[in-house]
């Protein structure tokens, strides 16, 4: 018990400290959807700031191994901050790492920082559950995807609206028991490659999600699909698993089996040696026997050999670049993944606007201006640009193909049926051609399910290879309208993630960040 004065003083002190804490600048760092990042995939990065000054967010990722040694990846972005709450969001490629450290700092002090050890990196794809009772789906996921499924409980606000952020997401299950997500987030998830499972019947607040189904029980959208079912989670998830497609990385690797650029072929050793020997002999003869006119002749010969040699042997550009885009299309949308191979003859520091990552591990840097890496001479690097959405020219019109784009799609092949020919803009019947498969398809076609159509366009400068999966042929609508089954109230994935860290700054002077979980105070 305390006296009234003492109690009042205690209460005042508590209130004052609460207010003071509330006014202190703070930063909440989150990597991955709901703080669950997927290694070897593009992941959303979110930084929430409160009353923080403009600062720079820096991620230092060591992607090296014991064999390769340190391979640093540095990501740095300017963060505006300001009074009140401000949010910074981007998408970063997270490789398998040995150590990850992040830091939010002004030129004067560190506002917050944290680190994560490499053992926390998990390359398993995520299965997201937007449900009030997520634990009830564990058995269904185990049945459909095996016991290693990585389930994560999310709320609607956790879902990013950029398709690239769903690179590491396999499924998104929505049962209508939680707050409705934004339509664009769910569309981004599907287009980004996830299979969205709408487990019905859904309440009216979720009605707009049915727009994604275009009146059916299932639909492909971009690189992913949407499945609606009222037949219970096992049936719905089995249907979703049946729609699974090969991993995007696997398809891209198959397309890139052959290099995109070839180094210049050097002139023959014997030819160069003979030409220079002839030049040397002629020069010596002129010097020895022809006097002053011979000397003038030698100088003219020097100029001639130099100019001819330079023009004949000098490659036109110091860097050779070529792009190839893999586009996974569905229902008019396509997820485009552009690969760019660059071969540099002199040692060069290369910069590309936008987010990219080298397909083979090597040191590089990402900032607001783009992606930067240094290549030694006569070396090539294959870059993958962040996935993005685009209009798809190829559509299924019932069982027929239709080209709704402006360019012809060439060398169409239907897996299991053989070459189809070219498809002109607006046409729905391919024109057979004499040419066979494009050689680059050779490694790609065996990976695709029967009925998938592959074509290419705009190959004069940079090819786009279109992959159009067959219309979803699963009977996922059985039982639609039935009530969802009773769910077991099992808690699921509520453990704190080391990729969600909160840094609190002291109100001035020396930095004093305290971090939840694996965060480290500066």
């Amino acid at each position, binding site marked *: 018990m305390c006296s009234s004065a003492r109690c009042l003083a205690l209460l005042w002190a508590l209130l004052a400290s609460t207010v003071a804490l509330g006014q202190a600048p703070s930063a909440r760092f989150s990597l991955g959807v709901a703080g669950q990042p997927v290694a070897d995939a593009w992941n959303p990065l979110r930084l929430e700031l409160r009353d923080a000054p403009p600062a720079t967010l820096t991620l230092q990722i060591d992607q090296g191994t014991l064999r390769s040694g340190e391979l640093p990846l540095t990501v740095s972005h300017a963060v505006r901050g300001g009074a009140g709450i401000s949010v910074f969001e981007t998408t970063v490629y997270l490789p398998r790492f040995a150590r990850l450290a992040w830091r939010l700092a002004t030129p004067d002090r560190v506002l917050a920082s944290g680190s994560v050890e490499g053992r926390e990196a998990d390359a398993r794809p995520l299965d997201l559950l937007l449900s009030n009772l997520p634990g009830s789906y564990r058995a269904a996921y185990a049945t459909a995807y095996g016991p290693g499924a990585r389930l994560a409980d999310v709320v609607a606000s956790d879902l990013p609206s950029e398709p690239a952020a769903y690179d590491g997401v396999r499924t998104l299950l929505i049962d209508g028991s939680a707050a409705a997500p934004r339509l664009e987030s769910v569309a981004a998830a599907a287009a980004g490659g996830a299979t969205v499972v709408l487990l019905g019947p859904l309440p009216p607040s979720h009605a707009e999600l049915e727009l994604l189904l275009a009146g059916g029980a299932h639909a492909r959208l971009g690189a992913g699909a949407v499945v609606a079912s009222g037949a219970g989670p096992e049936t719905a998830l089995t249907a979703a698993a049946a729609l699974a497609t090969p991993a995007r990385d696997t398809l891209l690797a198959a397309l890139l089996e052959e290099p995109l650029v070839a180094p210049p072929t050097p002139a023959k050793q014997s030819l160069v040696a003979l030409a220079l020997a002839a030049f*040397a002999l002629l020069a010596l003869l002129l*010097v020895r026997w022809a*006097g002053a006119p011979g000397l003038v002749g030698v100088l003219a010969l020097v100029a001639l050999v130099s100019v001819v040699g330079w023009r004949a042997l000098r490659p036109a550009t110091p860097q050779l670049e070529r792009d190839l885009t893999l586009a996974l299309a569905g229902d008019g949308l396509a997820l485009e993944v552009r690969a760019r191979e660059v071969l540099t003859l*002199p040692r060069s520091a290369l910069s590309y606007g936008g987010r990219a990552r080298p397909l083979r591990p090597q040191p590089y840097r990402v900032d607001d201006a783009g992606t930067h890496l240094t290549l030694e001479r*006569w070396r090539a690097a294959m870059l993958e640009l962040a996935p993005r959405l685009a209009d798809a020219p190829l559509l299924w019109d019932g069982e027929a193909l239709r080209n709704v784009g402006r360019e012809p799609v060439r060398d169409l092949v239907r897996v299991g049926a053989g070459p189809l020919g070219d498809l002109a803009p607006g046409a729905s019947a391919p024109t057979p051609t004499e040419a066979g498969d494009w050689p680059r398809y050779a490694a790609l076609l065996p990976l695709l399910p029967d009925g998938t159509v592959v074509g290419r366009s705009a190959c004069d400068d940079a090819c786009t290879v279109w992959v159009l999966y067959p219309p979803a042929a699963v009977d996922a609508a059985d039982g639609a309208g039935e009530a969802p089954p009773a769910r077991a109230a099992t808690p699921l994935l509520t453990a704190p993630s080391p990729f969600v860290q909160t840094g609190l700054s002291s109100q001035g002077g020396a930095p004093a960040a305290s971090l939840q979980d694996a965060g480290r105070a500066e």
Partner: protein
Amino acid sequence: MRFLDALAARLARSDMLQALTLLLAVLLVVLAFSWPGGNALVNEAWFSLAPIRHALLALAAAAFGASLAPATAGAGVAWRHEARVTLAALLVWALVTLPFEVIAHAASYPAVSLAWGLLTAPLTVVAYYGLGALLARGARALRAAWALPLLVPGSLVLLAWVDLQLGATLLNPWTAPLDPSPAYLAVMGGGAILTAMGLTLERRPRRAEPA
């Protein structure tokens, strides 16, 4: 006799002709062996050829500079003419060996500009020519002219060692083409100016003291 005729005659003299033949043969062998053959694609020929070309030009310039240094301070007009013609002949060497470097540079595509090699080669020749003359004069003053065949290559080795110790390219003709350095340009430019002054400024003979 016109300067061009004198230059042609100097180049045709056996000492220069033999040395030039040897230089061209070395460069030809280096280029042939460093040029990619078979299935190799990466061309690194310039990285072998350019240092050797610069180093041999510097060595030849220093050697000819040492061999032609005047025995006395008041050298005659004939010596001065001979020294100028010899230096011009060495600059012709730099030109005659240029196609080797141009061809290797074109195919290797190094980050270093070809202009750097075009600029430094003649400056190196002139500066090392002056260095050779200076060495010879000092050796004769010390009555050690017999040691010149050792002093000339030794001085090049010493200068390369100084560069290695300093960790910079100031004096070493071997590393100069690979590592563009304003300091090397300044040092060689200064040396070339001093050499040119030594070859052009007439020194007044001392008046005999009245008896």
